[in-house]
């Protein structure tokens, strides 16, 4: 079985995210890291490989993004992927969710995976949706927010929390599964794995190499235009107490609650 894991580089959590006023797009410059939600998808792939219920021949990390996205691929490889595929092309910049999913599905079609795994969301755009888009293009069954996944009688048995409680869903291969962050605790890469990551095979492809229709990607090929960013109505900032002397802090909380007749 071949597993492809979709990964993405995102601004480091410590960096304040902002919109670039000149382009109306997320400012993705500055420190970058592997989207933390993606590490759960890589870990899920590793656990399938180690679990033994199915033979995993290869785990391939796949990303779309500028040259700097290579760092996210190196991180993914240090966490267990065997090699990586980088879709990089200037024409893809500014793609909306639909166009991004289309381009990623073309990269995945080249790999012909039995299973596509991804994280539940990205740490920057907060899209929970790319898995469902990719699945429709690849014509594969799909489930998102999966928190438990086992191979059972040649299919995946997945659990997730939905509107009315926990659902258990049987999904046949090939499939696209987005995992929730409760599915596992990702391991830390070993020093050896970090050092070795840059030596693992990394293939870079351009849009034309994998048959992406240029009219369907980038800002021009996107069906939704986002812009006119405005500030939300301001909410009065709450009072903040830094706890230095806990006795004093608690007194302040009690006084605050008492003032509002909450005790």
């Amino acid at each position, binding site marked *: 079985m071949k597993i492809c894991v979709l990964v993405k580089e995102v601004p480091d959590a410590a960096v304040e995210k902002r919109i670039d006023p000149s382009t109306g797009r997320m400012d993705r410059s500055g420190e970058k890291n592997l989207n933390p939600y993606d590490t759960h998808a890589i870990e899920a792939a590793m656990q399938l490989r180690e679990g033994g219920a199915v033979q995993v021949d290869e785990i391939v990390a796949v990303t779309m993004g500028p040259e700097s996205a290579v760092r996210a691929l190196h991180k993914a490889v240090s966490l267990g992927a065997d090699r990586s595929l980088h879709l990089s092309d200037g024409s893809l910049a500014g793609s909306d969710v639909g166009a991004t999913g289309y381009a990623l599905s073309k990269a995945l079609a080249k790999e012909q995976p039995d299973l596509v795994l991804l994280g539940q969301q990205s740490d920057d755009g907060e899209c929970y949706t790319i898995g469902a888009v990719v699945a429709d293009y690849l*014509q594969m069954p799909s489930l*998102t927010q999966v928190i438990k996944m086992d191979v059972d009688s040649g299919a995946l048995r997945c659990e997730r929390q939905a509107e009315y409680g926990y659902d258990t869903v049987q*999904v046949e291969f090939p499939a696209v599964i987005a995992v929730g962050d*409760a599915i596992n605790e990702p391991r830390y890469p070993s020093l050896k794995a970090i050092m070795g990551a840059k030596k693992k095979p990394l293939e870079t492809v351009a849009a034309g190499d994998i048959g992406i229709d240029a009219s369907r990607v980038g800002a021009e090929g996107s*069906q939704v235009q986002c812009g006119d960013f*405005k*500030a*939300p109505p301001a909410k009065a900032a709450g009072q903040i107490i830094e706890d230095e002397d806990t006795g004093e802090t608690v007194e302040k909380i*009690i006084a605050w609650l008492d003032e509002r007749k909450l005790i």
Partner: protein
Amino acid sequence: MPDVLTYVLHYEGALNKNSLGAVSEGAARAAEIGGQCHAVVVGGGDLTDELCQTLGNYGATKVFRAKGPEGLAQPVIDVMAKVIDENGHGYALFGGGLLGFEIGAGLAARQKAGVTMEVTTVRAEDGKLVAERPILGDSKISISHYQGLGIIIGRINAFEVKATGGGAAEVVDVELEYSPWSTRASMVTRGEQRGADVDIEGADVLVAGGRGLGKAEGFQLAEDLAAAFGGNSAVAATRAVVDAGWYPYAAQIGQTGKTVSPKLYLAAGISGAIQHKVGMQSSENIVAINKDANAPIFEFSDLGIVGDLNKILPKLTEAVKAKKDS
């Protein structure tokens, strides 16, 4: 085309509240651009004519009903794509919820449409609908304009359920052959409840715990504090800790859990992700304790305490008890 198509989720013969909100919103906005609001339902025998007709009361004029599996997104994508192809709807609208995200995104791929998720406001502008979505931790609002079909996925609780007193909706049965991949996922069990049944929706005081409690046993601190408040108080939890098995599902607040608005919401060790915020932001008073000064919850709490909850909660519990006894 000005007509709006919504998807209405149901479970055991009852229609989903967020779906009804989407129908109400769809009907109101469609009217502003000269269109009508229709609904798609997919399921079995519990989708009776009577149940489907009641959607007219929320503003839907027509209900497209297909027989199919419940609780899975991809069959619904097939139905909605067919209905849109045959009727030329201009917009597809979803209330908040897991299935709405999956259906809306998959439909965007199928119909090559633009999609916006986490939308809090839809409005008419020059005869078209535009969607407003808060981004970057709700610090900015992005406005979406669509070419062709526009797919709008609401944030949970964003659209209010409004009974319009409209008459019975027309029910139209849709016959279709599902896509092969839509039939390759099947529901084994649906709606399983895990853990004890607790009632948090009626509480005046809620002490809610998140990952910051450290472990399942950490919930004792939250329970002690809730007990100190006495009366109508209860303990609630975030999705992360419920999924981790620390606390029962029935106590979960947020996107896939309950929506609450107690007089006092005391959040202990909760970072305040959007998925949690949507379930508790209408609480009258929000107090947050978190060791991370940058936690988003401090941006929407009335009183924020930056500190170690293991030190603060026990003392606060004692102080609340003392205050009540005085």
